[in-house]
């Protein structure tokens, strides 16, 4: 069965909204992702996210691997415009992205201005796995006490993220997706700390 652009994107959005308002919470969009029949270089969950958030009013950029095909597909399905890293509203980082490429995203994306902090990029990052047991501790709005999470290869970008979010309210918000269609969000307000062993 094909993806329903009305109801499935609504479900996808509610999942992202739930995760964005409760950083560290891991939800699953596999029910929708399983309906994706398009042959695409990225994870199905990434494609679901693109259909949920993109339209012709916004721009995006893809980083990692063969991005051309992905860009063409996103444009065809959502009518969003492909843009440079510095101006894109949504930046998709695929699993194929190298450490250097990921760091370069954080160094170059737009972080908004003090008058318009919402004019900042949202980074959609693909990762191998997300789980609720690990050595990464999250605190901030949306978290009652502390959330304990584990994100594959977070050492690649955690410091770069902290740097880009150091001047709140400027910063970037992240939507993390894994191979099992798990979703987790890290808005700019979330403070990360690595637990000392």
């Amino acid at each position: 069965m094909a993806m329903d652009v009305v109801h499935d994107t609504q479900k996808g959005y509610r999942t992202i909204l739930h995760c964005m308002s409760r950083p560290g919470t891991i939800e699953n969009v596999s029910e929708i992702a399983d309906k994706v029949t398009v042959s695409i270089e990225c994870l199905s969950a990434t494609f679901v996210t693109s259909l949920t958030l993109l339209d012709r009013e916004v721009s995006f950029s893809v980083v990692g691997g063969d991005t051309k095909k992905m860009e063409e597909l996103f444009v065809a399905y959502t009518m969003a415009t492909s843009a440079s890293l510095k101006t894109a509203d949504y930046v998709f980082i695929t699993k194929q992205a190298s450490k250097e490429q990921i760091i370069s995203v954080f160094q170059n994306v737009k972080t908004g201005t003090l008058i318009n902090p919402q004019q900042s990029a949202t980074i959609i990052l693909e990762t191998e796995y997300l789980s609720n047991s690990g050595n990464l501790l999250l605190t901030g709005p949306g978290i009652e006490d502390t959330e304990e999470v584990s994100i594959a290869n977070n050492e690649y970008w955690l410091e770069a993220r902290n740097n880009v979010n150091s001047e709140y309210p400027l910063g970037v918000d992240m939507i993390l997706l894994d191979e099992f269609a798990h979703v987790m969000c890290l808005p700019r307000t979330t403070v990360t700390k690595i637990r000392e062993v």
Partner: protein
Amino acid sequence: MKNKTHFALMDEGSKKEIRRATLKAVAIPGYQVPFASREMPIARGWGTGGLQLTLSIIGKEDVLKVIDQGADESVNAVNIKKLVHHTTGVETTTETEDATIIQSRHRIPEVPVTEKQIIVLQVPIPEPLRLVEPSEMKTKQLHGEKEYSGAWLMLFEQIMKYGKTATYADHPVFVHDRYVMAPSPIPRFDNIKMNDSKALILLGAGREKKIYAVPPYTKVTSLAFEDYAMEVESFAGKHCSLCHSTDVFLDELVNEETNVTYYQCNDTSNCLATLNEKEKVVEVGIGNA
């Protein structure tokens, strides 16, 4: 010919735009994100901001409750509920516990909200600094610079004039120690419910084209001076004339025939639930006798 309306009335492009603004609002608690407020089949100023938020988040499995000044059955609440039901087919309810989305005009329900719920508040004037600065350009700059002298001065002047802060509703709050926010004209009694709320709170101002949010478990403090704390409406010695509750927000009413002042719960569904609970206790009591 009557065409079938699209699910949740709005076209998908409009929903997406509101959804994107909402996500940014959640990521920057208390900051007013501008959005392209759509024309709604109700007049601006009658909850179009709240309605657009509700329509953008609602799905087939949701259960909707709409309240207007605490009442489930007022014209505004009933019309919004009907509109959403006709265009989505979702169930509506008056029970706070059963709802997944609670759209409210100026009250946060008495029954504690849960993590499964989203509260959508309708906002007439989202800008807490509007009374001290008419220019939108300048208020945006003041927020950017965290320059809130105007808000403090407003409260200070009230203290000088009346000996206390004299805001009735819409007493400004500080969100996540960064943004001063208008909590929508909820009574001061409800301000405390925003602090570390279990539910996500979304606020929408249709006429003013702004969306802002308070994520769950976020620090929200009412603006107050060390020596002049914010005073919550006091109902000491008063109770609801119907259910006799004392720890709730009460409306003051006057019996036009006898001129006697009496009080009644503002939250009608909570009042009814309390009455039903009492009824049950009496029935059980009779059954056991």
